[in-house]
């Protein structure tokens, strides 16, 4: 095993697994699950092994397209600290989720299809992580999109799931539109798409700030789509239609983080363009706050977590925008992956217990029925809400500190969002686990099998402790702002926010029978979905119908109908000259003679 071959094995073993499951998976459920887990575990093991290697051999790359110096696109590997850490996150969490899935999906239809999809996803995600150039990243970016589409639409017979998958794909495509243009712009300026080449070429481009800013913002559009930033965030809550492991793995822990990872990957370029970073910061900050607001009024346990994810991704993007290195955002990505994945797994566990009921107002009192799940949920909850000394506390506060320093408004906004975070997650906690059982299912809920609990318990550990300095320093080299520069009020404010949020939630929802608060603006997601719905149906749909009509009745009319009908009519009219009367013929004949004579005799 060498550092040269290991990444390739990591990358392609899930693909091999996916293909094998596709081909022979239908013979045995166990076999498919086993193949998937085996491939993920191999990746996990090799990732840890790679992480331990300090010396990295130069990486191979395969030629995918080659037009000489003009344009050469390779499939190659970047193996630096960033990708190693990301590999760890992805493979480890994947392995856990895969194991969890064997339990979660045990009674579901499309078992093999599900594992094939998961493996395909893993392959795609690893491709993004390992990509050494923009095009390769784009390729896997798209593949991640399609695997997400497949997995969200797992229950394709359900209208909502089918719609959600479609929406996810299309919204991602809109992001990819910008991404592709960004790649084109960067390439046309530098003649290369390789990250290494770009990094060496960009400093020479400082003279064209606008161009580069536009390019970077366009690339960032890819992040906006994939990491569900405002205004392209709408797909993520809907994607909760997929099976919960999918939500956990793709739509919380890894795939949505790909956008942030990509920004981290091109961070050296972003450093050259402060304007772009400012835009990124604003998008992240606003997303982080607004998504938190929306989360406060959701009733679906997974949707709350989904908005929470959006909000947390907002933090990461904000981190990219304000922090001096990419490590801070990556640190939050890392911790978030652990605790959000955990939270989703716990939610999944609750759902299984509740027979796929997701409205939390039908739950209640589950603390006794599913105690292990509750413990895990608490671990995740604390980390998410930034309870001091949990992982989330370290990573989130670091970003907020930098934000306050760089763009104070966004910093304070993010800090306020932290309070909202505490509020909505505690709200969910209390409603689900406390109070009386509010439905039949809730009364007969029961704890889940070991295959689901073990991964949760394993994840609970990093969720709580991954942020501790002695652990984090193994993974990240973080830069902390000068302690004096940070406003003194900030930390007390953050503590206040945490306790305030949690306390308020306890006050309102501990033993609440139904929601005592109703803010339609938040419940309806700031009406953004409605605006989109209106736009897609009325503007785009209407517009395209008008165009379709125009194609049939204007273009076709002008280009085809009118000339052909005109020709026909001319023919129809002309044949009336052929009137059948000899005298008329003789007259025309004579007229022809006179006409010809006129032509011949005129000067």
């Amino acid at each position: 095993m060498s550092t040269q071959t290991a990444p390739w094995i990591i990358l392609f073993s899930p693909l091999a697994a996916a293909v094998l499951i596709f081909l022979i998976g239908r013979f045995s459920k166990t076999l498919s699950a086993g193949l998937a887990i085996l491939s993920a575990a191999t990746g996990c093991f090799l990732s840890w092994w790679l992480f331990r290697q300090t010396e990295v051999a130069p990486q191979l790359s395969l030629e995918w397209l080659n037009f000489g110096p003009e344009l050469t696109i390779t499939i190659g590997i970047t193996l630096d600290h960033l990708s190693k850490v990301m590999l760890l996150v992805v493979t480890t969490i994947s392995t856990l989720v895969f194991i969890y899935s064997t339990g979660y999906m045990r009674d579901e239809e499309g078992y093999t299809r599900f594992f094939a999809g998961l493996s395909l996803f893993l392959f795609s995600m690893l491709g993004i992580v390992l990509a050494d150039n923009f095009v390769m990243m784009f390729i896997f970016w798209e593949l991640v999109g399609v695997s997400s589409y497949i997995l969200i639409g797992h229950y394709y017979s359900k209208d909502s799931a089918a719609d959600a998958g479609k929406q996810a794909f299309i919204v991602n495509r809109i992001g990819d539109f910008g991404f592709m243009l960004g790649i084109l712009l960067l390439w046309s300026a530098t003649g290369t798409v390789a990250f290494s080449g770009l990094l060496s070429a960009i400093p020479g481009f400082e003279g064209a700030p606008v161009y580069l800013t536009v390019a970077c913002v366009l690339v960032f559009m890819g992040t906006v789509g994939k990491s569900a930033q405002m205004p392209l965030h709408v797909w993520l809550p809907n994607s909760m239609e997929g099976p919960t492991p999918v939500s956990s793995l793709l739509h919380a822990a890894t795939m949505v983080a790909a956008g942030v990872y990509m920004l981290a990957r091109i961070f050296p370029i972003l450093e050259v363009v402060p304007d772009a970073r400012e835009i990124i910061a604003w998008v992240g900050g606003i997303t982080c706050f607004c998504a938190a607001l929306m989360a406060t009024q959701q009733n679906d346990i997974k949707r709350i977590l989904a908005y929470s994810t959006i909000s947390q991704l907002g933090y990461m993007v904000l981190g990219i925008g304000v922090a001096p290195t990419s490590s801070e955002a990556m640190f939050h990505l890392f911790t978030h992956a652990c605790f959000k994945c955990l939270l989703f797994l716990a939610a999944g566990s609750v759902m299984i217990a509740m027979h796929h009921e997701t409205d939390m107002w039908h739950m209640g009192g589950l603390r006794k029925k599913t105690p292990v799940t509750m413990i895990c949920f608490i671990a995740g909850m604390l980390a998410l809400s930034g309870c001091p000394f949990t992982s989330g506390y370290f990573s989130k506060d670091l970003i907020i500190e930098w934000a306050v320093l760089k763009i104070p408004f966004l910093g304070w906004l993010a800090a306020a969002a932290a309070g909202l975070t505490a509020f909505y997650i505690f709200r969910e906690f209390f409603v689900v686990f406390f109070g009386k059982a509010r439905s039949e299912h809730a009364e007969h809920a029961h704890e889940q099998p070991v295959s689901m609990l073990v991964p949760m318990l394993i994840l609970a550990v990093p969720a709580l402790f991954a942020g501790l300095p002695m652990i984090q320093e193994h993974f990240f080299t973080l830069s902390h702002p000068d302690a004096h520069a940070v406003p003194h009020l900030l930390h007390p404010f953050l503590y206040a926010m945490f306790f305030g949020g949690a306390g308020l939630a306890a006050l309102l929802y501990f033993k609440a029978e139904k929601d005592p608060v109703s803010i339609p603006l938040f419940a309806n997601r700031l009406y953004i979905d409605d605006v989109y719905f209106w736009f897609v149906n009325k503007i785009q749909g209407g517009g395209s119908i008008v165009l379709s009509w125009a194609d049939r009745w204007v273009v076709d009319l002008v280009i085809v109908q009118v000339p052909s009908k005109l020709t026909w009519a001319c023919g129809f009219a002309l044949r009336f000259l052929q009137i059948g009367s000899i005298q008329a013929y003789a007259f025309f004949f004579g007229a022809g003679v006179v006409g010809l004579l006129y032509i011949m005799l005129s000067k």
Partner: protein
Amino acid sequence: MQLALFWIFSILMLAFALGVVFLRNPVSSAMSLVMTFVALAAVFVTLDAFFIAVVQVLVYAGAVMVLFLFIIMLLDLRAEKHRKVRPSAWLGGGLVVGGFMAAISQVIAGWSALHQTKPELSDPSFNDVAGVGFTLFRDFNLPFQIIGVLLLVATVGVVLLSRKELK
């Protein structure tokens, strides 16, 4: 003298031609046509084309006209009833004929060589029957044969076409 003769016969000819075109009774038209042919034969004479003049009278006035009259009688054609005169036809016909005449006059008027008088023949006593005959049988032998075939075909055709329908 020649001019006078020319004008007399020409005007006669044209007048009868007018009669052909405008008389309502087919028999009158046919009679006018005979007179036109005869007048034309006279004009031929003023051009020293005696043989042609004779042929004109024999063939046209003799044979063709008999045929015409015979058919008119056979079909028992009467004068046209007062069918409505179609102004459009008359206008159109008039325009075409007028245009044609204008074209001819333009050509004639613009062609100065036409205004010479008749040149004298080198041998006024030359027998034009011999001239035509020699030319016809020596130089124009092949067309003459063709005309023969043509007459044969016409004969066959007439026989075929006038076969009586047996009821």
